[in-house]
């Protein structure tokens, strides 16, 4: 066995270990079924909507918030216009004029974290939520989140179940499967008290969080990831409300997707460096012992596997081309062997099938958790495209992190 293949076996072992770990976690504690019960109490809530040039989606975002089944006197919507140059402020102002629940704050452009901090300063509610201006909430999302807070008084923040908003294009379909996989592993991370990120779309915090650990930081353009790390560092519990659904728009071009994921991946690398003391530290529970190390290992494994596959493909093509050049054998198609004897039945084949099979299981469980179904086209898009595109952002993120260069927002 060559060293390259040995490395792939190590990657497969780690990947399989992680999937097995999550499945054990699922079997130990299955997600509860959504109930029709209402919260015992409706705490006051401020939903912050940081906006920068979101004229295409902000109206839909605000309307979805207005449609929330939550007492209007307990819900405040704060739009923070972060120096938009398009009609975002105009649209938000119109909504604010028509709906007293909506408050518009205008500020100079300073980045998303500054907008969120301005919103926090202007809020006196018990719960503070964030919603990116390109996302839309289900009507009962807030009620479901509040119910989740009521299950345990030690919960300090809630993440929702995130789905792709109206996926139509191939890349959107691919991401719809990825997000479904994310729903499963986020719930399993919740079982392990090790949620790794409080995403921009509809994460909800107890206002005490900001009093205890401060507001958002620049954090390499991944303020949502950093605050999650900081909460774990301070022992603040984060839970997942899998019944609180939020729909988010996703990049539909390769360039936009790679840019977004480079920011996320590079942010993870740089925040990991900032919080390196948490790695393999039992004091931070499964977050320090499993989720953080696995995240980093998965990053390296992804890059390694892609590099190895590329090396093998290039070597194969080059060898064939050189052979043809040297031998003068004209291009021809040899009759393929169809008997079982010629099927690749190496140990690696079985392991890859197992890893893919377990990924399928995770995606199906994600569907089961959210009571939804993905199309066959989505699955095909995911399994065909993801492995081809992901290495691009992994490589860019690694390069950016090595050069300590900040990734771009958009």
């Amino acid at each position, binding site marked *: 066995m060559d060293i390259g293949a040995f490395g792939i076996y190590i990657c497969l072992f780690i990947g399989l270990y992680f999937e*097995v770990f999550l499945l054990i976690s699922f079997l130990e504690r299955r997600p509860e079924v959504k109930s029709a019960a209402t919260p015992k109490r409706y705490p006051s809530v401020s939903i912050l909507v940081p906006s920068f040039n979101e004229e295409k989606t902000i109206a839909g975002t605000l309307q979805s918030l207005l449609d929330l089944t939550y007492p209007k006197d307990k819900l405040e919507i704060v739009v923070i216009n972060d120096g938009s140059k398009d009609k975002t402020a105009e649209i938000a102002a119109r909504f604010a004029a028509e709906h007293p629940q909506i408050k518009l704050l205008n500020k100079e452009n300073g980045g998303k974290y500054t907008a969120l901090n301005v919103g926090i300063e202007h809020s006196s509610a018990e719960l503070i939520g964030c919603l990116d201006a390109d996302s839309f909430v289900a009507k009962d999302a807030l009620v479901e989140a509040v119910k989740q807070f009521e299950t345990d008084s030690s919960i300090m923040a809630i993440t929702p179940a995130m789905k792709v908003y109206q996926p139509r294009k191939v890349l959107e379909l691919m991401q719809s499967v990825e997000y479904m996989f994310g729903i499963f592993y986020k719930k399993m991370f919740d079982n392990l008290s090790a949620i790794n990120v409080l995403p921009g779309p509809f994460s909800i915090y107890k206002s005490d969080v900001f009093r205890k650990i401060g507001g958002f930081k620049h954090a390499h353009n991944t303020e949502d990831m950093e605050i999650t790390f900081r909460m774990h560092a301070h022992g603040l519990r984060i839970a997942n409300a899998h019944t609180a659904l939020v729909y988010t728009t996703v990049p539909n071009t390769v360039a936009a997707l790679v840019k977004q994921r480079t920011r996320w991946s590079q942010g993870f690398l740089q925040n990991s460096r900032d919080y390196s003391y948490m790695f393999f530290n039992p004091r931070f529970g499964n977050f320090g012992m499993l989720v953080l190390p696995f995240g980093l290992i998965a990053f390296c494994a992804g890059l390694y596997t892609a590099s190895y596959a590329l090396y093998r493909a290039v070597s194969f093509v080059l060898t064939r081309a050189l052979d043809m050049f*040297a031998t*003068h054998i004209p291009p021809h198609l040899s009759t393929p062997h169809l008997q079982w004897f010629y099927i690749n039945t*190496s140990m690696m*084949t*079985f392991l890859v099938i197992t890893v893919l099979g377990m990924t399928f299981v995770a995606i199906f469980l994600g569907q089961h958790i959210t009571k939804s179904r993905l199309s066959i086209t989505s699955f095909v898009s995911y399994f065909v495209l993801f492995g081809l595109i992901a290495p691009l952002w992994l490589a860019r993120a690694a390069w950016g992190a090595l050069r300590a260069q900040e990734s771009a927002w958009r």
Partner: protein
Amino acid sequence: MAWKRYILAFCITAAIFGTAFYIAQRIDAGRIADIRATEESISIDILSSETQFELLGHLDCKIIAENPVLSDELNSLASRLSVAEENLGATNKEVINLKEQYSLLEIKDYLLLQQISEKCHSKPVFVLYFYSNAGDCKDCGRMGQELSYLREIYPGLRVYSFDYNLDLSAVKTLIALQKLQGPLPAFIVNNRAPVYGFKTLDEVEKLIPELKTLATSTAATSTKASN
């Protein structure tokens, strides 16, 4: 921290790896058995022809002409052996053993072919090809590709390939009889003088003028026509 969960996940993962290893091993063992069965079958066929030859002092040339039996089976065996060698490694004892048996069958088929051509006045086209996969012959793979290609185009062409380094007295005797001394790859066409070193496809075709007398396969004919 639930350490038990970490250990359990490790055990399950290790068990999955063990199962994958076991299944792959079983399938490889099945492949070896398949090759062995084919070799036995070919061996019986050769023995049958030889016995018939000895009993009657001749062979039914008509039947032989209509059923050029062993060539296809040996070709199929060669490609299977190549897969087994790739999966299990060239140094695997089972693979070496199968290769030795395969080489013996090739030699017996070659000898039988000589007898048949003499008795039936046929003019077979055959190549004895000697290679090494010990890392000392970088052109052997390419030469092998050329001969495989020619065999695909001309199904009547018989190629007997031998691992020069195989520790088998019959192969060593063949090498000595053919007075093979030069660098590998080397090949002998119809018992003529050995040709040493790498040759391009065009050069090989020139070295085997008898190819023109052989029929081409349907696929090759259509490929050639389109060129």
